[in-house]
């Protein structure tokens, strides 16, 4: 998806090409997503993140098509700003607040894989530690008790050994990435598309994209 102000659409497009899959840019006024298997909302500053991160983008014309797409079981992945938009649009519970130290964070972090029973993590093992970069100013995830019942924690911030710790923004329960209960909508703050090549410092992001490819292949029974 490309919203006015999206920046990482280019990086996600490149990552999918690296996985040998077809991918196209979809402008935010599009209303028909039937031809796609996965819809990815990339990182960036949609609408300048004005008023609230993701708030204005969550009313883009394409959002009702994305809600329908997700309702039908299509895969929806929200990365960084994409995760913020999915929360504002109500596709995922909770909200992203300003980082606890109020400053923008751009550096590598570690996440521990908590749940591999999803289209986005089936090629990983519970307890795996992924080194992924983050680049955000509002990644401090909040969820009320009520919200906690409507989500599954997929990734948690950790140290390099996978123990609790390494939380860069004050996110509740060290949450880095969650999915809805049925697991077909995932939102996470770290950028897997920036960790696809050793040249850039890590390949750990491939675990998420290869899980998507494997899930689609197995679901449709044809070689993708």
């Amino acid at each position, binding site marked *: 998806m490309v919203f006015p102000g999206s920046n990482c659409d280019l990086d996600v497009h490149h990552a999918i090409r690296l996985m040998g899959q077809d991918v196209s840019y979809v402008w935010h006024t599009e209303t028909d997503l039937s031809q796609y298997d996965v819809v990815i909302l990339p*990182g960036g*500053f949609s609408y300048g*993140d004005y008023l609230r991160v993701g708030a204005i983008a969550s009313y883009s014309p394409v959002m009702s098509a994305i809600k329908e797409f997700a309702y039908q079981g299509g895969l929806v992945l929200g990365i960084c700003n994409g995760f913020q938009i999915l929360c504002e649009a109500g596709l995922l519970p909770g909200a992203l607040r300003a980082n606890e130290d109020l400053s923008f964070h*751009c550096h590598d972090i570690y996440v521990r894989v908590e749940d591999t029973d999803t289209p986005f993590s089936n090629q990983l093992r519970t307890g795996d530690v992924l080194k992924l970069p983050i680049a955000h100013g509002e990644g401090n995830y909040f969820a009320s008790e009520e919200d906690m019942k409507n989500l599954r924690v997929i990734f948690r911030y950790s140290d390099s050994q996978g123990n609790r710790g390494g939380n860069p923004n004050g996110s509740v329960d060290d949450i880095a990435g969650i999915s809805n209960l049925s697991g077909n909508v995932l939102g996470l703050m770290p950028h897997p598309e920036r960790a696809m090549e050793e040249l*850039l410092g890590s390949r750990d992001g491939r675990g998420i994209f290869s899980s998507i490819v494997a899930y689609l292949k197995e679901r449709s029974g044809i070689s993708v």
Partner: protein
Amino acid sequence: MSEALYVEVGLTEGEYEKIVELLGREPNHLELELFGVMWSEHCSYKSSRVHLGLFPTEGERVLVGPGENAGVLDIGDGWAVALRAESHNHPSAIEPFQGAATGVGGILRDIFTMGARPVALLDSLRFGPLTYARNKYLFRGVVAGISHYGNSVGVPTVGGEVFFDRSYQGNPLVNVMAVGVLRKENLVKGQASGVGNEILIVGAKTGRDGIHGASLLASREFNEAPLEMRPAVQVGDPFMGKLLIEATLEALETGAVVGVNDLGAAGLTSAASETASRAGTGVEIDVSLVPRREEGMTPDEVMLSESQERMLFIVEQGKGDKVREIFRKWQLDAARIGFVTDDGMLRIRDGKEVVAQVPAAALTESAPVYERPMEFPKKEDKEVSVPLPKLPDGYGEILRSLLGSPNLASKAWVYNQYDYMVRADTVMGPGGDAAIIRIKGTDKGIAISTDGNSRYTKIDPFLGGAMAVAEAARNVVCVGGRPIGLTNCLNFGNPENKEIMGQFRKAIEGMALACRVLGIPVTGGNVSLYNETQGENINPTPLVGMVGLLEDVSKRVGNGFTKSGNLICLIGENLEELGGSEYLSYVYDIYGNDLPVFDLEREKEVQEFCLRGIDEGLIKSAHDVSDGGLAIAIAEMIFNGRAKGAAISMT
């Protein structure tokens, strides 16, 4: 015309008389303001132009040299890079966040106005000592402003430097550099060619931001900025900046765009007059057609406004609608405000009435060129050399305190606030000797570094200028990049002061010599004068932004030790010399008198040796010995590398 009027727009009596002579009549009030802003120091370079001619600007890679919005260099296989540096010192001293943010916005526009996709930003910052609350406020505000604009607009901030020195008290320096990449066939210049072609203003609406901002503000000393200029602070909108990049690059693909120019200092006035004079044509515009953000704006205000995120497009006759359609998709204004003429005039209408009419070249080319008096401190009056303090016996303690000093300590607190990875092309980010950006679809990498040691240029402007170029080149070489061109920001004090003009002249002579010996062309840059507060001038600070090329980016090397057991060797001698060192300044608060020995031919050999060693895979990592000297350089290689320590023999 009463003296008050032309003095109020910053002109001298002599300059006013020259205007009357050029026009053959007295200028009306608007015409006077046009000259006032275009003949200001910031826009006309009137005190520096005669010296800038010393720079070597030729080279077989140079596609566009000084005089355009940015310089452009050929990097082979049909690819080219655009580069430019700009200073936003005065606005940042008034409002650090917006001053720095609009500096980033402006330098990016200079890049994509050439048809290049911006791929990297660097910021070179200088403040007074952090012991003063005001300097901490300025430092925090500037970093937040750069982070706010750069991150939101989606261009990675991959490097730069931060330096603290008492000479910048009350007068911070905010220099920003941007680099873009383009296919050679997409190059477009800032020229209003083709009589009858349409002139469009695109991007944000025009308001009263920064009226008399950059031009007059930057041409006055710091404490003279009258209060009423303060509310006119320019505010940047990075979201609109991002839309402007995408819309401009998409519009250029239509082939209907003949010329593009950024609206920076002096806004519409400079964009209209420069595009006309570069093409040798004239321009006629109607200010009533300019989309506005505020009511009741006068023609003067529209012509002088420095509202951000605006560009001037020159489009083939009849194809304006095609371009406007693209801008509408990106939710941006694009209004036809005039057309190209052949009479060389800048004619401004307000509806039907002609409110100003002056030869475009008079504004851009006929500003007076001053050979201001200069004074060079002779060697002997500096002979009274300061006796070097007794060297301490325990060095461990000294090394530990130096490693913690603001100038040498890690700058991670700064660059972790910048998104240096967006666009997934940053092969080497901040913290290395130079940043490296790869070009997808090729093996090429671009190495970029900014450098400038103002203590050296204070002690000896000539050698200091040469060393600024050499150090920037050395940093690029240390990652395996061959230096191919540079841009610069020349930050100096008040040009009406003989000693300052002497520093300016000598620094440029030194830089020019180093460029010739090292074979590196100057592709353009920026001059910032009047960096003076209450009679105190800053150290002469020539900031060099160097671009280097790696034909095969996989051959790059970092500046951290890679494996224990590797040999550590020093290329070049390490002599007993402390002049201008961080040690003297940090521990004793003195600069010292003499610079380290510097030999350009030797420098060239050291750089060639290093490049070949890296190319042949012999050198696994490399780091230049600069601020803090050998001990600091080795410590940094340990911190940045995987080894735990280093054994060094001093014999």
